[in-house]
């Protein structure tokens, strides 16, 4: 049954194409093509085209009437806000995608303009202009690295020659560093960063580029040792020196158990 249908449809299409190519010359005179098309009467072609066109027009008009009759006014600011947003649909704002945040920030007076993490303060200010809300000072966030015990300071438990990746290295007895908690330095976070904000220092520690970092948290999730966290940008650099001094004293020890001290050195300055 379906083969018959498709063959009829194919014939009608070939008729229709022929009709158009001959500038609507009547089908009976079209000659060869009509014979090749076989047994579909010309009237079927016409009724098909007419009925389909009529149905299309009827539905089109009905939809146009419905659209005009039941028009819903959408706040134009929603579209403006959506264009301002980075469009990453990352969900960091807590809404379903950028469109969801745009609708809520325009429609709901309690939703702050500063919730877009990748957009930072520049986007928050633009949204504040569009929505007429007050842009409170956005404290930008940034990733920071706890561990300051690079390869020059720390000792190796063994020589690791496996896949040069932290997630792989951590499977081998927790990695080759004598410090059980520290950064392994294979740059998994660098590869995880979608913004190219992480580079590895000479000492095999990740360096965060504060201008490029958007605090998306991908590196935090990628690090098997949890030595990266998202912090307020103003505090990102602080404590590093203190942690370095702890590292200088402790990382060289054959068995370090002072990571809590590295961490508290970072926290103390907050």
């Amino acid at each position, binding site marked *: 049954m379906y083969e018959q249908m498709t063959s009829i449809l194919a014939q009608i299409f070939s008729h229709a194409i022929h009709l158009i190519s001959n500038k609507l010359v009547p089908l009976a005179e079209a000659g060869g093509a009509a014979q090749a098309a076989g047994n579909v009467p010309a009237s079927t072609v016409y009724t098909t085209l007419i*009925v389909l066109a009529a149905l299309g027009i009827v539905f089109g008009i009905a939809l146009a009437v419905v659209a005009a009759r*039941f*028009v819903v006014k959408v706040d134009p600011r929603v579209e403006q806000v959506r264009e301002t947003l980075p469009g990453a649909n990352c969900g960091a704002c807590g809404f379903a995608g950028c469109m969801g945040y745009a609708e809520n920030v325009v429609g709901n007076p309690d939703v702050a303009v500063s919730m877009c993490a990748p957009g930072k303060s520049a986007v928050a200010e633009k949204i504040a202009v569009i929505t007429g809300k007050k842009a409170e000072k956005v404290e930008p966030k940034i990733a920071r690295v706890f561990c300051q015990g690079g390869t020059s300071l720390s000792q190796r438990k063994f020589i690791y020659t496996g896949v040069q990746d932290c997630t792989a290295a951590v499977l081998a007895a927790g990695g080759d560093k004598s410090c059980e908690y520290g950064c392994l330095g294979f740059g998994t976070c660098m590869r995880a960063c979608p913004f190219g904000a992480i580079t590895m220092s000479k000492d095999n520690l990740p360096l965060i580029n504060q201008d490029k970092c958007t605090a998306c948290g991908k590196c935090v999730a990628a690090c098997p040792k949890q030595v990266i966290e998202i912090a307020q940008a103003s505090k990102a650099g602080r404590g590093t020196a203190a942690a370095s001094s702890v590292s200088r004293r402790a990382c060289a020890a054959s068995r370090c158990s002072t990571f809590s001290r590295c961490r508290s050195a970072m926290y103390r300055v907050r």
Partner: protein
Amino acid sequence: MWQHVLTIFIASALINNFVFTRYLGLCIFFGVTKRMETAVGMSFTFTAVMLVESALNWVIYNYVMIPYHLEFLKIVIFIGVIAAFVQAADTIMKKVVPALYYKLGIYLALIVTNCVILAVPLLNADENYTLFESMAMALGSGLGFSLALIIMASIREKLELADVPKSFQGLPISFVLTGLIALAFLGFSGMITL
């Protein structure tokens, strides 16, 4: 006649259940049954759309397509009718009942090209059902589909807590479950003979 209508209703809901017997609409079936809330929303939307579009398509089939001998255009025209109706319903609902729109609107968009929605008018046309029979078929199919969705959603919510082997977690165990429920639904076959 009413007995016949009732028979069609029960047959399409249980014996020829779209998911478990005809194996149609499986993408939506697996897609929305992760949570009970979405399953119930989809069930309502599905049943309502089916009921209306089967009536619409019956009218067009019997008063436009048969007189002009255009039965072979069933698929094309039915899909067009469904798309137009769903689009119109979407627009009207957004204006008249926004609350319902925000609850069910996302499902409407999924429905347009769904195979179950298209299968109902196609089967109605093949069987030459009357208007009431068509609508009984649509209501039965809609409720049968709802039954399938709700059974699956409640099992999958329980499954969240079950200790499933790792390689079976998620979709694989759902496939296994669907097969088992389909086996159970085979028990309905032969319950009513038309």
